[in-house]
Each structure stands twice: as C-alpha cells, then as structure tokens.
C-alpha cells in the first residue's frame, strides 16, 4: 500500500507488491458491492403495516380538510377555523401531510385557497420574456403569496409523487 506513495523505492519488487496489493484490494471490494446490492434489494421492500398507525388522527385531519373545502366559498370564518385546527392537529400528533394538501392552504391566515379566494397569476419579470423566468403566484386575500418558479425546471416533480408508494 505504502509502496505507491514512496517514489524513492528501487527495484521491481515494490511494483510487484503494489500490483498484488491492488488485486487483493479489488477482490474484497467487489464482494462488498454485491453484498450491499443484495442488502439493498432486501431493504427496499419493508413490510407494509397491516393497520395505518394513528389512523384516527389521519381520519380527523382528512375530515377537517374536506369540511374546510366545503365551507370555502359560503362561510369563510368556519373554513379558516377548520384548516387551522387541521394544521395544529397534524403538528401535535406529528403526522405528515402531502405537499398537495399543504399547497391549498394559506400559511398566514390559513384560508383554503380556492380560485375565487386568491389571485392566480403567471409572472415573468425577465426583459426577453424567456419562459425560464415564469413564476406562478397564488396571492391570498390577506396578501401573502405562494410563488412557484414554474419555468425553472419544467419536468420537476415532487418527491411525494415520484417516490415508490406501497
């Protein structure tokens, strides 16, 4: 191993040794890799739980989300109340909400963003109007905006959509 690093060594012996050393190195490496691959394949199929953990909390959150959507246009206060309780329940019980669900809620005033509720606009501030500078903006009634740089990467997909779902 050290022979390669020492250029002062003379004769053929050190080179032979280094070759041997290389061979010896390669063998265990390959076996390791295969082992890891096999392990990966085993690992990639974790057991699916028979019952969803904390199903009751999930059900409550989903119900609240739907209720707020239902009240979105006719009773604004109620809808906002539902969404805020939804987020607090999710935080308290440490459950994850999908990004699609989170994107429909205003972060500041917890309004359910319906197209009648917010302004939807495609902004392009670039001088040459190149499509790479397209930004989709959802502006809530309260003034907070969600900005999605849509043009930056057109084939972008959320991890939650691309990850293998069981």
């Amino acid at each position, binding site marked *: 191993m050290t022979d390669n690093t020492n250029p002062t060594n003379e004769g053929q012996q050190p080179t032979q040794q280094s070759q041997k050393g290389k061979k010896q190195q390669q063998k265990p490496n390959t076996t390791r890799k295969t082992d890891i691959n096999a392990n990966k394949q085993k*690992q990639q*199929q974790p057991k699916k739980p028979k019952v969803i953990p904390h*199903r009751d909390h999930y059900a409550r959150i*989903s119900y609240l989300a*739907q209720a707020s*959507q239902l009240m979105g246009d006719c009773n604004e206060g109620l809808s906002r109340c539902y969404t805020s309780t939804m987020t607090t329940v999710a935080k308290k019980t440490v459950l*994850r*909400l999908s990004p*699609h669900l989170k994107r429909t809620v205003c972060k500041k005033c917890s309004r359910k963003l319906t*197209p009648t509720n917010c302004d939807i606009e495609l902004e392009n501030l670039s001088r040459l109007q190149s499509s790479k500078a397209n930004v989709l903006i959802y502006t809530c009634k309260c003034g907070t905006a969600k900005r999605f740089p849509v043009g930056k990467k057109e084939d972008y997909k959320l991890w939650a959509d691309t990850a293998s779902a069981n």
Partner: protein
Amino acid sequence: MSVLGEEKRKAVLKQVLEDPYLKVAWPEVSEDKRESIFSLLQSALAPVKPYRESQRQAKDTGVKLPPTPGAVEQSSLGFNPVTKALQSQAKQNLLSEPVKEPITMVFICKDDIQPEILVKHFPSLCASASNTQTAVKLVSLPAGSMEKLSEVTGLRDLGCVALKAHKDFDTLSKVIMASVLDVELPWKSESPFTPLEVKSLTTFAPIKKSKNQLTAEKKGKENNQKEQQQKQQKQGKQGNAKPKGKVTKP
C-alpha cells in the same frame, strides 16, 4: 464514504396523508370529437392573426384600424387573461350579480403545459364560474395542439383560450354542448365526503440503536479507557524503573 453511509441506512415506510380532493376529474371527450373540436377552434381563431398584424401596422404608420372582429373581442387568449376573466365571473356569481356576456367555453392544452400545477386550478375555477343559466365547458385539447394554436394566432406559447357566446362560435358551441359534460367538483356532488387515503412512501432512515445498546457501548468505552489508563500508568512505572536498573547494574 458513501458506501458505508448506505450500509448504515435502512428502508422505511413513511405515511403521508394525501389531499382528499387531489384528483378533480377533467370532463372526458372522445379522441375523434377532440380533433374535430380542435379544427373548429382553429378556424374560429383564424381572424386573430391578420388583425394583430394590422394593429402593428397601424401603430407604425398611423393608418386607421379596421373594425375589431368578433373572434378577437369575444375571446381571451393566454394564461393570465383566461384565469382573470374566469375569476371575475366566479366572483360575480358568488355575489349573485348578473354576468354580462359570460364565458361559455374554455380550451386548455393540458398535455402540453408542464408542470401540472399550472393547469390544476382550471376545473374548480370553471365550475365556480358556471351559473345555473350558463355552464362553462372545459375542454382539454389533444397533445401537440399548443404549437398549432400559436401558429394560427401568432401568439407565443398559447395554451389557454376562453370564448364567450358569439355568433362566430355557434357551430363550435353546438358541438361542445352536445359532447362535453359539465365540470363536477367532488365537494359539490351529492356525497361530498371522500374516504381516507394515506400513502406510505419508501425512504431510507439511519439505523437507530436501542437505549440498552447505547448504554452497553458507553460502558464498554469507559472500561476501555480505564484499561488504557492503567496500562499507561504501568508503562510509566516500568519506564522510570528501567534506566535506574541499567545504571545500577554495571
């Protein structure tokens, strides 16, 4: 060492609550009718390009403008104009004000516009813009129609078109009224509640050791340290003692 890092991770399932109304269905149209609708739309939008050119000439030379054709006046072209027109109509509907010249047809090149979030709001927007008297019909155009549309109208990347009721669009509207269904929102249907949907996604997480293992390791480390210290002490004693012996022996 990325290889080592991978070894230490294991595959785990993470539960994520899916948006209950994620898939708001677009009204389906058969392929043949889509094509026929698209060709009709192209012919309806034909007067847009010459009018725009004449507009440009008028700006440069100061020639009087020709009268605006109905296809230009009664249509909104592009993403922002279409959404704004639909939104104002929806707001008027909410306040139950009468809408003058409502939009009746919306055409979106759904397959050509990427990413999906750009077209996500159209179904619910169309549904809230439609009235008891007039329904807004939403049509998704066949793939590759965006290029053709922008050729016909002379506008760059035209993927969204909204049309009002006008005599120029009569044939088009008749076909659409016959073949395309209204947009239906799941939360405004008879049974608004959708069942719970929890996705479980596979990710990798570091392997955590249990408390017992951790405490055992700690103890082991402490013991090792003690042993080393003892050894060092012994070595020190020996090292001190040896030279003395050497000096005394001869």
